[in-house]
């Protein structure tokens, strides 16, 4: 049976991970390759590397980094951050990335999703959506949550899937950083109504939160950053807990 996926997310700036403490088994928590390899060895099902570099050197360092990750890590990984054109994706996939995630650029130019899925296949195109609940509904935010739109999250997600997005990475801004649990309602609405996998993000604080987002919201995968980087939760313990709860999980 297909399992639920646990996905640590690493923020990258100038080729280095931004958050993270030193683990016993690695020398340098700032080295994305080393940290990613540790998570892979601990049983992470996939990795997401989100590049938050703002400089012009971004493309070159990211390309080099992706090559290093692909050389050393034997599980799938997604690369995101500032991807706006078919050529960006082509470079990252040929360097060895398995998937790319697009966010603001796809909203501004939805045809990008059609172009990317036609060129590379839907399976490697992840649409990331930052969403916030206000005035009775969930709306799409852009530019890392700084710009509000009037588009309902469900509408954008549905259009994106029609255009060729192969997965939705949904981050709830209301929940992100709270450690009070994932946004079960919007995650559940997307997961039940879209025929592509939904990755829930934002709010993970306890192991029960992961069980809830899988069991109650039907998420296909759950992503978290700080709780893993600061060792508040270890992946083997989390997977063991989910297994005991009867959630389908890979050991």
């Amino acid at each position, binding site marked *: 049976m297909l399992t639920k996926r646990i996905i640590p997310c690493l923020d990258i700036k100038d080729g280095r991970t931004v958050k993270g403490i030193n683990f016993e088994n690695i020398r340098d928590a700032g080295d994305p390759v080393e940290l990613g390899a540790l998570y892979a060895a601990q049983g992470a099902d996939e990795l997401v590397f989100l590049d938050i570099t703002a400089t012009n050197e971004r493309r070159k360092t990211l390309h080099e980094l992706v090559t290093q990750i692909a050389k050393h890590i*034997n599980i799938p990984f997604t690369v995101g951050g500032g991807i706006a054109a078919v050529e960006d994706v082509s470079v990252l996939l040929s360097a*060895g990335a398995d998937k790319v995630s697009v966010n603001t650029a796809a909203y501004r130019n939805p045809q990008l999703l059609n172009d990317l899925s036609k060129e590379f296949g839907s399976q490697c195109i992840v649409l990331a959506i930052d969403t916030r609940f206000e005035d009775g509904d969930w709306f799409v935010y852009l530019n890392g949550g700084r710009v509000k739109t009037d588009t309902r999250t469900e509408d954008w997600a549905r259009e994106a899937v029609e255009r060729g997005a192969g997965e939705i990475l949904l981050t709830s801004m209301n929940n992100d950083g709270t450690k009070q649990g994932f946004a079960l309602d919007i995650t559940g609405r997307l997961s039940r109504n879209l025929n592509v996998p939904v990755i829930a993000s934002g709010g993970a604080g306890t192991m029960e939160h992961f069980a809830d987002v899988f069991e109650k919201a039907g998420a296909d995968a759950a992503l978290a950053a700080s709780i893993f980087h600061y060792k508040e939760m270890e992946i083997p313990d989390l997977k063991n807990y989910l297994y005991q709860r009867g959630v389908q999980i890979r*050991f």
Partner: protein
Amino acid sequence: MKTAILKYNAGNTQSVLFALERLGAEAVVTDDPEVLQSADKVIFPGVGEASTAMAYLRERKLDEVLRNLQQPVLGICLGMQLLCRHSEENDTPCIGVFDLEVKKFQSPGGNLLKIPQIGWNNITGLHSVIFEHVPQNAYMYFVHSYYAELGPDTTAIANYVINYSAALQKDNFYAVQFHPEKSADAGQSLIESFLKL
């Protein structure tokens, strides 16, 4: 010992090359028929669409080259599907090493089915030398919308709505629907066993 990875318009050749490098194997990425024919092993990777890939292979007569290889060949994902007889994906006649039809996943009775299947699924009924060090029920990483039916050449089974061929073997041809190059330690031992053939 040299392994040739087929270069064509639907390959994740880089990931496969890196996986072989991690095992210390010598490998080249090539579409030169002579290099393919003289290699000790040939890997036929794939991520993409069937009809475009077959058109590309036919144009360069690489379909004939592949069909007539005598050394161990490993087809991965789309590579496995193209080694079958025919694919429903844009009604594409394929290479035909395995006498099987490749079909699209159908959702049962109106229930929503997520296609492609993306993620880790377990494989059972393993009986091929490439699974020598892979335990029954091992989890492998799959990404696909089409599957090969079960048949006499099936050497591993996976389930997504229905049971289908997760792996095939016939003579010197081995094929897997999942991505061993992305399937952590289990995938790595499969590649290792293949390289030792």
